[in-house]
């Protein structure tokens, strides 16, 4: 377990956390409404305006170290922020870029890359995507076909990455590739010659992409890390991503539960509000309890991000994902059920939240994957 130091944790938000989350909640209420979200989705590409408004409140620079123009915030603050973004069912690359991409660069040894990309990211002017998945093996974190070779003037990368979360909206991709029999991480600018991106919508209305690399040449400074260091960086970013994703799901569950409570109070059948029926009241109570368990497990994952023991950290992050996925399914499915026929239409918010919760279950490894990971880490 994490060190307790004999004193109890402080669950109250600090003054700064409270101000930050209040601002985010106002932003969500104002600019992440059903109509505005749907309109942005229809555009099919990242809204610069939406990203700028999130960056202004510090989302993009949240965990960027202060030395590189960011806020260097703790995992606890990251949790509170992504919880709010989940309440707003944000589709922008807050996790893929501002958590995972930033976690890799912030913790790597390549000072040149850090200086080039991190301050720009904190300003909201550079977006990163992590291209790790490939075809052929379910959720494999080991590159299968993507290979890099070193040459006199840098590296040449060849291969194909699939399901790159927010790949098309990024300015640079962090690509995993095999080099000399071990994994390496490269930073590949979006405009590199030989890099092709085919973008498609996902089940929740956000985007992912297939990225093809044909003899993409990058300079010697594009290598982020290789070997054990690359694996360690990737695992760290994965666990950061999992924690932020869990927080996002908890926020979405909270909002969805509130929306369902409101609906049951207003919808009348048999001459009374649906909220009067005990069987539905108990369902609401279960939804709430699921959300609280999931949020508590997300706290465990956030605490674990400061662990020195990486295996322990990953173990707890995966455990959190398993717990949150189960809760997310319960809350999402029951929110639809309690909305009745209206719940299965594409015309209410409940569908957007249900779809996002379904997507988070399958993002960054599903329950089968994480139970397998827990088993391997324990062995």
């Amino acid at each position, binding site marked *: 377990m994490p060190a307790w130091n004999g004193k109890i944790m402080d669950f109250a938000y600090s003054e700064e956390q409270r101000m930050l989350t209040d601002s985010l909640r106002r932003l969500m209420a104002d600019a992440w409404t059903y109509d505005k979200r749907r309109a942005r989705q229809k555009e099919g590409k990242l809204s610069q305006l939406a990203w700028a408004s999130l960056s202004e409140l510090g989302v993009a620079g949240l965990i960027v170290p202060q030395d590189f123009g960011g806020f260097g915030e703790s995992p606890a603050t990251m949790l509170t922020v992504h919880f709010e973004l989940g309440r707003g069912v944000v589709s922008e690359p807050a996790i893929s870029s501002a958590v995972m991409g930033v976690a890799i660069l912030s913790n790597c040894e390549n000072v040149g890359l850090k200086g080039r990309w991190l301050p720009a990211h904190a300003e909201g002017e550079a977006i990163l995507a992590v291209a790790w998945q490939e075809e052929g093996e379910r959720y494999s974190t080991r590159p299968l076909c993507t290979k890099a070779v070193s040459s006199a003037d840098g590296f040449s990368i060849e291969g194909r990455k699939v399901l790159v979360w927010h790949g098309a909206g990024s300015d640079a991709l962090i690509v995993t590739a095999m080099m000399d029999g071990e994994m390496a991480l490269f930073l590949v600018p979006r405009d590199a010659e030989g890099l092709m991106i085919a973008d498609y919508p996902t089940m929740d209305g956000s985007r992912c992409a297939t990225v093809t690399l044909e003899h993409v040449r990058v300079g010697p400074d594009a290598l982020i890390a290789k070997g054990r260091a690359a694996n360690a960086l990737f695992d760290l970013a994965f666990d950061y991503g999992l924690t932020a994703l869990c927080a996002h799901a908890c926020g979405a569950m909270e909002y969805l539960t509130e929306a369902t409570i409101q609906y049951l109070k207003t919808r009348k059948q048999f001459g009374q509000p649906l909220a009067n029926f005990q069987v539905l009241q108990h369902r609401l109570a279960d939804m709430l309890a699921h959300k609280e368990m999931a949020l508590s497990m997300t706290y465990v994952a956030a605490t674990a991000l400061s662990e020195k023991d990486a295996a322990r950290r990953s173990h707890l992050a995966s455990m959190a994902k398993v717990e949150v996925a189960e809760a997310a399914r319960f809350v999402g499915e029951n929110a639809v059920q309690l909305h009745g026929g209206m719940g299965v239409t*594409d015309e209410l918010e409940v569908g957007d939240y249900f779809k996002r919760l379904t997507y988070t279950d399958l993002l960054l490894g599903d329950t089968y994957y994480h139970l397998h990971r827990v088993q391997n880490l324990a062995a």
Partner: protein
Amino acid sequence: MDLTWNSEEIAFREEVQAFLREKFPADLREKTFRHQRLKKEDYIRWHRLLCERGWGAPNWPKEYGGTGWTPVQRLIFEIETFKAGAPRLLSFGLTMIGPVLMKFGSEAQKAKYLPRIITVEDWWCQGYSEPGSGSDLASLKTRAERVGDKYIINGQKTWTTLAHHADHMFCLCRTDPSAKAQRGISMILIDMRQPGVTVRPIKTLDGGKEVNEVWLENVEAPLENLVGEENQGWTYAKYLLGHERTGIAGIGHCHRELAILKSLAERTTASGESLSLNPRVRDDINRIEAKVLALEMLLLRVAANSEAGPGPEASILKIRGSELQQDLARLQMQVAGADSWPYDPDWMHAEADFHGPGDEFSAAASAGYFDMRKTSIYGGTNEVQKGIIVKHIIGV
């Protein structure tokens, strides 16, 4: 109790299988197995093949042009046709209004409508739910007033499945506004091809547009379009819902989806081996297969006791069948894993090639899961079904 299939049933199964091998079109099979959307022509094409074989109304007695099959034969037929990838039968005519007309309809109604259901010359839809009357169906407000020799109907219906294809609607209307909820309701047959009928599609979570809102504004129906007696519509509606629930259990659907799930797990690789060898996945699939087998036997037990039409035990079938359809769709999506992220509505309409990664099937995996959420809501929510079980079987 004799728990073996008799030789006639075994021979019948083989007869159905042989027919499917010989006649069922491969392109339709492919479409259903990939979960691509079926068009009106697809349903009709399948139905016409059945008609040619004399199987146009598998659940009807011979006197009305049906097959006269036993409940067990019907079940075998459903399972075998679904397993082969056949589209579902057009239930609104065949299993809903058809049996109601046979029991409660006038001779003229039977002569006019029943033959055209078998040949799909008429497409029917169900005018039950309204925006304010879902679970509490008896609170419906659509009004039918007698004016001279006809009814003038005004109101709004919703969740009307495939109404955009329909020629006729069997519609629950309030004919006596002063009577207590269930007492003043009548069932009236409405010609949809007249002014005053407006159909608007409702887009559902999966991106489909199968259900509709229907507005009825001064719509006319001659008095002879009343089914049975005036203000007795609730009795007919309940009779019909019993039939609907048995069909909703979807045993054929479950068998087909289980086969799809297994084949998807076999084709998927994780940690260097087929996902079907992964003990977690394998156990989940085995558990769900046990439930499919149990549901089939439960259907047989209910069918054997229900020559006169299914009783309240149909609610058990509806609850468990709908949950099973949902669990199968969810497991398919989970097995597809990350490959189920892309959502490609054009491919689902068979209007574009699939460009995403992974198996073609995975393009519709999330849509299948989203779509199946309706099964625990339509035909009376599962909460309402549990109420029926408590009231009519348990008796408290």
